[in-house]
């Protein structure tokens, strides 16, 4: 048995070509660290991507990698996973790749629950095509294709995933390496399609679009790190989330002397789908943005398991073509 691989072992000899300061660098490092921490085997790991800045990712991971076509990575990844369920498959996509041109495939890979990890780098912009608004861009986003501001209503990636029937939904931030690594490890441990949205800062075309949530000085106030079995507290424990039965919605309440008692604060239950929907929908500035594992339901079987259980022989050749040719009614012609 070889020694476990280090972060260095997961780097390739290719020059990384993202813009200086791009959030993708931090994600790359986090993923390489995750691989090393997990003791991953590079020959049994594959990164599959579509098209876009995020989709260059496989070239920089010293594992098997497939940089495919725009939006279709989930379909290639499904084929690969079915071809060899032993392979640990990671899909790398972006907001345009995964939710615009590839929205259909993302829906289906999630609902089928193929055992793989999906990392959606959300920067709310088309980077590689030079800055057009994307399906996650906020209304009013000014871009080369929307000089007066975009009018499209954006999609919320985590809500989309849940709506598609995801059994694992999580969110992280590019530069928040430590929690991101923990989230990726949880995604990896999950048997099924695990969906992780990563806020990623596009330094050139949509700089600081998440700054109001991710900047160090506001992070405590504007993010909430959810953890199964723990109270949904943020702002250093001074604020929390409470369920209001009259509005059937969450509300932010102060905790402590000037506010409510901690026992009134909701406790995160990652298997509660309704709660997950509410948490996914929370948006800045009315709410803190939920980070970490928002939803996890390990009860369903993965597609690849079900697929191979359904194919009676598990894909092995147990019969002979010569015998199959003779199924049905036969007759013999004699010479003469």
């Amino acid at each position, binding site marked *: 048995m070889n020694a476990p691989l280090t972060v260095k072992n997961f780097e*390739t*000899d*290719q020059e990384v070509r993202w813009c200086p300061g791009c959030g993708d660098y931090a994600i790359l490092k986090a993923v390489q660290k995750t691989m090393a921490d997990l003791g991953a085997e*590079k*020959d*049994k790991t*594959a990164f*599959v*991507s579509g*098209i876009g800045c995020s989709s260059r990712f*496989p*070239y920089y*991971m010293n*594992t*098997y*990698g*497939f*940089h*495919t*076509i725009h939006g*279709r990575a*989930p*379909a*290639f*990844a*499904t*084929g*690969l996973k*079915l*071809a*060899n369920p*032993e*392979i640990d498959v990671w899909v790398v996509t972006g907001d345009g790749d995964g939710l615009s041109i590839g929205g*259909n*495939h993302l*829906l*289906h890979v999630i609902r089928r629950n193929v055992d793989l990890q999906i990392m959606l780098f959300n920067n709310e912009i088309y980077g590689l095509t030079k800055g057009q608004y994307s399906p996650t861009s906020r209304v009013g986003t000014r871009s080369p294709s929307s000089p007066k501001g975009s009018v499209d209503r954006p999609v919320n990636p985590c809500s989309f995933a849940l709506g598609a029937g995801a059994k694992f939904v999580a969110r992280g931030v590019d530069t928040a390496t430590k929690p991101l690594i923990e989230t990726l490890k949880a995604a990896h441990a999950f048997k099924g399609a695990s969906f992780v949205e990563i806020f990623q800062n596009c330094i050139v075309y949509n700089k600081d679009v998440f700054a109001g949530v991710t900047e160090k000085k506001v992070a405590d106030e504007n993010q909430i790190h959810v953890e199964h079995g723990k109270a949904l507290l943020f702002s250093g424990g001074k604020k929390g989330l409470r369920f209001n039965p009259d509005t059937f919605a969450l509300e932010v309440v102060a905790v402590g002397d000037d506010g409510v008692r901690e026992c009134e604060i909701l406790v995160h239950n990652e298997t509660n789908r309704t709660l997950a929907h509410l948490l996914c929908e929370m948006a800045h500035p009315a709410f803190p943005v939920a980070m970490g594992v928002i939803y996890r339901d390990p009860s369903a079987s993965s597609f690849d398991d079900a*697929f*191979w259980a359904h*194919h*009676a*022989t598990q*894909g*092995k*050749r*147990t*019969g*002979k*073509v*010569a015998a*199959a*040719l*003779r199924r*049905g*009614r*036969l*007759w*013999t*012609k*004699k010479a003469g």
Partner: protein
Amino acid sequence: MTKPTDEISIVVRFAGDSGDGIQLLGGQFAESTALAGSDFSTFPDFPAEIRAPVGTTFGVSAFQINLGARRIATAGDAPDVLIAFNPAALKVNLPIMPKGATIIVNTDEFNDRNFAKANIERDPRTTGELNDFRVIEIPIKTQTLEATKPSGLSKRDAEQCKNFWGLGAVLWMFGRDRAPVEAWINKKFAAKPEIRAGNLMALAAGNAYAETAELSAELPQYRVGAAPMKEGEYRSITGAEALALGIAAAGELADKPILFAGYPITPASALLHYLSRLGELGVATFQAEDEIAAACAAIGASFGGRIGVTSSSGPGIALKTEAIGLAIATELPLLIVNSQRGGPSTGLPTKTEQSDLYQAVYGRNADAPVPVVAASGPDDCFDVAIEATRVALRHMTPVFLLTDGYIQNAAGPWLIPDMDKYEKIESNAPPALAQSDAPADVKRAIWKRNPETLGRPWVHPGMNGLAYRVGGIEKDMTTGDISYDAANHQKMTDLRFAKVASVAKFIPSQHVEQGSEKGPLAVVGWGSTMGPIWRAVEAARNEGLDVAQIHIRWLNPFPSNLPELLRGYDRILVPEMNMGQLATLIRDRIEIPVESLTKVSGQPFKIGEILESIRAHAGVAKAAE
């Protein structure tokens, strides 16, 4: 009673509502023909609507069979016998009936209500329009209801047995044994005893009625003997079944599992259906969310070390096009089956055409060549699937396999092949590496192509020490790294062309089906026109015309000797079910003039149509001498 007439070949057509069980009736009659040792070819001709309004002309489903005591090449130009289950079926098929033919009509359906549904003004039996035919009137529904009374079936269910009543009568006309059909009914309806009983009663009653009833005109009896065919074991097979088995056989010969990814589309779906029952042969089928995903999943499987196969018809193939480009760029094997149908757009989904040749040969962005092969009939599909897969694995390339709606559904007898006679399919083995090899050497080894085939080693995830990255961005020829280098792109483009060209070294030389290798006229075809061309050329030669037949299997690249061979004829006539696509391809690749005979009616060529054209061309060729 008159004696049965001996027929060298005879064409029978069954027609009725799409809910009348016409295809089942035809299929069973074909089986009985097979068991009697006659040769045959069938042509199911059904509407796009699943259950069109009862009694309408657009809801008519038909099944034609040509059976004979000689080699049968087509499903027949014109029916000698038509069995019409309702007025709409008679109306739709009357124009193709030759004078003197026998028409059996189910009189129970000949009433004003049904005439109205079929837009018939007056009962055709009273207008004189049937004067040229031998018309036999049988109240099939009444007879069926009467016969099936003891079964306990409801009137509605009992009426459904009328196709078996009709089959019983036809079996008598052809002197065929009822027992195999009874055995089939017993098995098929084992779990539904009442329906089983009803069908058996209807079959027997139709048979007895034909023999004893006094009819308006006597039912003719035919004797079609066994055809001279090669010795061996036979079964009946459709093109779709043969393709499915051929794909499974390719997997066995390559000792690789198959992942077939498809999306439902007419008439390609039959392949997905058959393959989904071949799990024990190492075939897994994945029904994807769309055509694009199907192609992508198949390529993903090939990247992962299984043989990826995808299939569709023209509109679906169009959607897969970008993914096929990726398979070309990444040098991965992929089998793409196109069951062609009438187009453009949705076109004629259930009708046949061979109009996707341009799409297969030229239809991608950029310079992106792929090998293209076409099946010439249902009996050819098995071998063509093996050959196409062999090329895909040997050269590490996508391969187009063209079939069509006609081949897909048509059936004929098939000499079961001996699997031991097929050569194993070799794939490009991964490079053997030492632990000490430097990463740069590993990369070079992964992209070191076989100089003969230009196929690269089939390296896939799970192989130790060979982890590599690949994608749609142009890659360096030797290292596989991303490369925007101008000279490299030229080299890679040249490589992709040279690879497809190299296929010509491995495929058989073009042979002449009939006639000499030089002469005044050659009829050149491809795909499912094989049957009618063969018969037409044979007939022309029997008339003393000097004409040869050439049928091209590999359309890209052409066999190496094809240019020289074609230049040996004064005139080239290319019949095809499109507006002249092979004609264009020959002009493009061989740069010789050719003449087109085109047909895009959704129906296969008639022998007569081709024969007429041959006569015209041969006449001119003669006059020019």
